[in-house]
């Protein structure tokens, strides 16, 4: 019993610094947002308590529903391509290939760039009047390149997703590169001795062994998708007519442009709830070991 207690204390001591930082900088903002979400408040003058009115209003707000739908597109359409391309790049660049470092840097640089720069540049690329795609399309006869991607409400969100994939695939690659280092090479040697081809080794051995990397990417991808802000803001400002709105862009607009901090906080709280709920459902699907660390 006593050793158990002492072990508990050791564990808690290891966690303490993190928990302290956390309690100060994360818990208070959440509490603050929850409280603000019950107010009709402009962020400056005294607010009025309205109970759950903001929540009722939110679930009838068509823009909120569009933002939810866009998140539902965004999650699979960014996570899967980013993971797939990132995985293949990591495999290719993990074998001491000539100029691997250069390739890695090239694929990773987009993630480093400021979203402001990315927004302005991609707008110039996709501008159907005079952009790069249009000019290349005219020169090569591939006219479809000059489409109205960002301006059309049906395609705007997908155009932003496309840019997001370009921006963040390098990050998935980095993850898989780190993950590949955890695989014991003797397992691969053994597979080869057993006569497994490179394709089989990849699909049957490497891919399953990277399970925890896949899951981390999935978790970070879901959360990253839900909180996407800057890229959307600079590329479309959530438009045209809210067609590419995401929850954080809508919250930003409500808080600072429409002076409805209470309503914006409601959106933030719902965002947090959705993120936690989807993380918990991941636990259900992939097993509690992922969270509690009882795996292996």
């Amino acid at each position: 019993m006593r050793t158990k207690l002492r072990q508990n204390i050791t564990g808690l001591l290891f966690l303490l610094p993190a928990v302290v930082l956390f309690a100060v900088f994360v818990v208070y903002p959440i509490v603050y947002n929850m409280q603000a979400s019950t107010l009709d408040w402009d962020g400056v003058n005294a607010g009025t308590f309205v109970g759950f009115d903001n929540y009722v209003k939110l679930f009838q707000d068509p823009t909120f529903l569009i933002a939810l739908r866009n998140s539902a597109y965004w999650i699979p359409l960014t996570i899967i391509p980013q993971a797939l391309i990132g995985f293949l790049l990591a495999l290719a660049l993990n074998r001491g290939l000539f100029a691997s470092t250069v390739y890695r840097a090239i694929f990773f640089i987009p993630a480093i760039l400021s979203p402001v720069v990315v927004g302005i540049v991609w707008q110039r690329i996709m501008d159907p009047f005079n952009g790069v795609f249009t000019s290349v399309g005219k020169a090569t006869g591939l006219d479809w390149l000059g489409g109205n991607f960002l301006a059309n409400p049906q395609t705007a969100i997908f155009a932003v997703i496309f840019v997001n994939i370009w921006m963040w695939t390098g990050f998935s690659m980095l993850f898989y590169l780190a993950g590949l280092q955890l695989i014991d090479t003797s397992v691969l040697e053994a597979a080869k001795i057993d006569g497994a081809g490179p394709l089989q080794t990849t699909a049957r051995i490497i891919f399953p062994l990277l399970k925890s990397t896949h899951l981390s990417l999935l978790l970070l991808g879901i959360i990253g998708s839900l909180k996407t802000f800057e890229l959307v803001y600079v590329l479309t400002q959530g438009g045209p007519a809210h067609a590419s709105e995401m929850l954080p862009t809508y919250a930003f607009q409500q808080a600072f442009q429409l002076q409805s901090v209470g309503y914006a906080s409601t959106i933030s709280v719902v965002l947090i709830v959705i993120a936690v709920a989807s993380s918990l459902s991941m636990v259900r699907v992939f097993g509690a070991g992922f969270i509690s660390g009882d795996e292996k």
Partner: protein
Amino acid sequence: MIATAVRRRSRLARRGRWLHAVLIPLAVLWMVPVIMVIGLSLMPSSNPETTLFGILPAQPSFSNYVIVWQQNPILLHAANSLLIAVPSVAIVIVVGSMAAFALARLRVPLRGLIFGTLILALVLPMSGIVVATFKILQALGLYNSLLGLVLAYSALGLPFAIIIIRTSFLAIPYETYEAAVTDGANAWQIFWRVYFPLARPALAVVVIWQVMMSWNDFLLPLVTLSSNELKPLTLVPLAYRGIFLSQPGALFAVLVLISIPVVAVFLLVQRYLVNGLAGAIK
């Protein structure tokens, strides 16, 4: 052991030469927007015309870099950025891997709950918490101080670090831990001497992530720093981003300058992504 690994890698590399045929065109396409960013930073305000499908300026010049350099104490701002980024990376690495170690290997009550609440910090969008964070820093007397920013970024970066590092700790066989316990090592020694060094690939990822976050964010320093002497690099572009900004050259020049150190960190750290666990454990 190491020698065979190296031999194996070079053999693999030779067999993979055909990959260049795929990688080169892909890398070129991938770089087009990046080249445009550099191109725009070289576009002089006197001539906004472009060439090569609009990718490059018609008349490139370094004038924007000269303007930016003359109008701002770039080195002072860079020093401030370093004073924010370096300590926050150090804190996240040490504190994050300690927590990850506890969650992966030590006995901790309510482990699931702790891990679950970590996720909360990942979700918070900066614009939604800036007011509350500001109030905390004020209450702690850390308003207008770089330390306040270091602590805030560390707190926000921790969950990512913990998730990533823990994954890598879990991949280290449990027998390693048991063997160390049998040898009489205490928890701190096992953590610091055995686990921490083995997590290098994961730590490399965390370093890059934390550098990106603490180096690039501008909302928090904008709001919490009032002295000009404390301002980090990221506040410089704001002066070139006015509502009536017609010539983005100077803006792009600053942003290219800001990106260079992050690229350098990436190049430095990425070599830890090639020699991880393989061969090191046995």
